[in-house]
């Protein structure tokens, strides 16, 4: 048994009735890099929080070097040599790099008082082998994401971690930064650290890992040697079924160009972005997280305004300063985070649906609630919303149905262009299919749809054309879907900066 440094058996974790982990298994060998893969919402992040003691599992067994163990909090797991680098960097932006590194185990002198000098010194020693450019006295918030990740690694090193968990560390790094990270990770492994490397990029896995475990929909799928599994099998394991059957047949007729984005730039976010989308067409905007896709959409929708460049709707130059303008012109946006941007959880479904269009229900200065409800019911039926009562709050629905409420809200006004930012993020497979059907149906009715997605199979299965972004620039465009493969898109989305200047 001592082959494995860490073992988890049949771990279950629920959050208010939702199963985030449903009986997962995991075995980590000493000194290996073990890739953990799965789609968004597969439960990877919850899993590491269970290992590090942020969450306590509802049931299941965790053994460390063959001995059963329970962590009450993160400092317990830190004492046992487990360190984690979370996906959304969990640092203190206003505090210095040094303090972030030593948070929880500060160096103190014999009077129990912070020894800043020693801490800065030690922090420098830890950081230097990783990066020469980081000033340890600077606040964490002023560093780039890559630098912040290096600080997190230094933090893990400072604790003599035996087990290091890295949650999608490469998601927002440049190619060179990735290579640097690979080098550091391998060095750590050679020093005997066992590493759990969470990623959804195959490249990371082939480069680093010796074994891979796959989660899907909060459950455990399997563990394989990296050498012994093919790409297809792995995708199948992650997605759960053959790719072909996952997407509805495309039936829409593609018409004229509706929306043209011409050379728009926004300092700090993206530069010289151009593309267009036609009636009845689904254009996929893809790339890695942090590539600037969401920001481009927000700019079209008027949440941000571009510094330069112009947007044309049906050939006319339009000046969109706010979502109010966008909605008037017939541009709708399905936001990425439905909880924070799409829904008002305290208000009933019908009020959510009509929140963008309530003016049309005003009769003699008064809101006609009956008409409002009728309209909402009609819309919700059209997209087959599974809900019992139109006056219930959306928080009572599942993720997929919540997303449908947001879709209904967008459909409540007449639109020409619909932007859907990660429309299937965090919803289950069945619900995904019905969202695709809705998209298809909308395309048939003449909508021009821009879909932002980071899931390659989805992009390949749904889109008519693909635009790939990387670091705020267009690095690839596929006008025909023939012969496009995941690898081609991936390559475009990893291109070094200035790649297509």
């Amino acid at each position, binding site marked *: 048994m001592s082959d494995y440094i860490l073992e988890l058996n049949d771990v279950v974790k629920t959050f208010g009735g939702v199963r985030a982990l449903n009986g997962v298994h995991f075995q980590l060998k000493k000194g290996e890099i073990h890739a953990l893969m799965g789609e968004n919402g597969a439960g990877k992040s919850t899993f590491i929080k269970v290992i590090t003691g*942020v969450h306590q599992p509802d049931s299941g067994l965790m053994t460390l070097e063959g001995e059963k163990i329970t962590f009450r*909090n*993160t*400092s317990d797991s*830190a004492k046992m040599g487990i360190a984690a680098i*979370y996906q959304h960097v*969990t*640092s*203190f*932006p*206003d*505090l*210095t790099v040094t*303090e972030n590194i030593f*948070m*929880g185990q*500060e160096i*103190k002198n014999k009077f*129990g*008082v*912070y020894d*800043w000098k020693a801490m800065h010194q030690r922090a420098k020693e830890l950081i230097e082998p990783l990066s020469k450019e980081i000033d340890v*006295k*600077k*606040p964490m*918030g*002023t560093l*780039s994401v890559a630098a912040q990740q290096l600080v997190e690694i230094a933090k893990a090193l400072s604790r003599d971690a035996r087990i290091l968990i890295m949650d999608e560390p490469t998601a927002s790094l440049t190619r060179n930064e990735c290579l640097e990270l690979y080098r550091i990770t391998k060095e750590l492994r050679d020093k005997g650290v066992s590493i759990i490397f969470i990623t959804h990029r195959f490249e990371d896995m082939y480069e680093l890992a010796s074994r891979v475990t796959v989660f899907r929909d909060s459950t455990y799928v399997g563990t394989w040697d990296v050498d012994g599994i093919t790409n297809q099998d792995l995708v199948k394991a992650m997605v759960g079924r053959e790719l072909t059957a996952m997407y509805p047949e495309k039936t829409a007729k593609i018409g004229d160009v509706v929306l043209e984005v011409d050379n728009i730039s926004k*300092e*700090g*976010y*993206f*530069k010289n972005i151009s593309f267009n989308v036609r009636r009845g067409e689904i254009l996929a905007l893809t790339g890695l997280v942090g590539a600037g896709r969401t920001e481009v959409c927000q700019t079209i929708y008027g949440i941000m305004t571009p510094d330069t460049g112009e947007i044309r709707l049906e050939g006319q130059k339009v000046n969109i300063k706010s979502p109010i303008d966008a909605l008037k012109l017939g541009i709708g946006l399905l936001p990425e985070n439905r909880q924070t941007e799409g829904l008002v959880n305290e208000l009933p479904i019908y009020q959510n649906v009509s929140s963008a269009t309530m003016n049309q229900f005003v009769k003699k200065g008064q809101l006609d609630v009956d008409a409002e409800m009728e309209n909402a019911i009609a819309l919700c039926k059209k997209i087959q919303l599974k809900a019992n009562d139109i006056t219930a709050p959306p928080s009572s629905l599942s993720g997929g149905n919540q997303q449908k409420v947001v879709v209904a809200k967008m459909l409540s006004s007449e639109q020409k262009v619909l932007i859907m930012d990660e429309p299937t993020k965090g919803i289950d497979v069945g619900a995904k299919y019905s969202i695709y059907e809705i998209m298809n149906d909308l395309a048939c009715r003449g909508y021009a749809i821009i879909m932002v997605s980071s899931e390659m199979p989805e992009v390949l299965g749904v889109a008519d054309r693909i635009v790939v972004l990387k*670091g*705020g*620039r267009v690095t690839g465009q596929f006008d025909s879907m023939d012969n496009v493969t995941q690898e081609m898109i991936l390559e475009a989305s990893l291109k070094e*900066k200035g790649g297509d200047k």
Partner: protein
Amino acid sequence: MKNLLKSRNTGLIVVLILLLIVAGIVTPTMFGVQSLISMLQNNSVYALLAVGEMCVILTGGIDISIASQLAFVGIVCTSLSCSNPTVPGIVFVLLGLVLGALCGGLNGFLVGKLKMVPMICTLGTMYIFRGLAFVVSGGEWWFAVAYSDTYRNWAIARVLGLPAIIWIAIIVMIIAGFFQSYTTAGRRIYAIGTSRESAAVAGVNEGTVTLYAYIICGALTGLAGMLYTANYAIGYYGMAEGFEMTAIAICVLGGVSITGGKGRMDGVAIGVLIMAVVTYFISMIPGMSVWQKALQGAIIIVAVAINYFTERSAAKQALKERGALI
């Protein structure tokens, strides 16, 4: 960012010097040694309140009940001292600290453990403490004759040429500055103010940290209450009304971010001096005293607005740096 904070402090010092120059030209009498000392003496109470308020604001909260706490603790100390003139003053200093800590503890418990909104919670306790001050005092007023010397000496006795209350304020500020930068407890206050989620992941108990931040604030307020009555030799239930705003104003002026996590003791110290000069300056010009409230209000608004604009320009700067990466 540190440079920015530094430059903020230098900016504040420039403002302070300019104020002194203007004040010196308009009312040259202001620069007598005695009048400067009395200026500092009268503002020491604000310094204590500002240090306490700073601890609370750093957690991302606010305490608007401190003026009422001050009145309550001050009244308790006064009435006990006046009826027992033989008891040495040190007892009342300790009593003030403990009683204040209890008041702060109530706020801290409600905010930290029961998760009440700080503003509303301290609004409620503000009422309660003020009412208690009245109940304890029975509506009575105390004047100089009633105070014992050992009580008053804690504020007015000269030590090395300066009144004791100034020394106490200076010592408290030094200790607090040290506490905030060099001890775990102090740094945890910054940690939860910076990011509650990160603090939770790092295993910091947010509720407990909030609780002791309010307790520290309460204890310092209690101390200020005892010293206030000793300094002015007057005690009544309505005293110190509006002091909470002055304390908050000093913090904001000194660069403490109202959203928590940012701010340093040296900035607050300069803030105290600026506020002292402004109020003293106003009181020196005949007929200007009615301007005090309006000016204070305007100063806070301008200070918050300046904080907002510097933070926004810093964010823009950061974006530009990121833009260079693309």
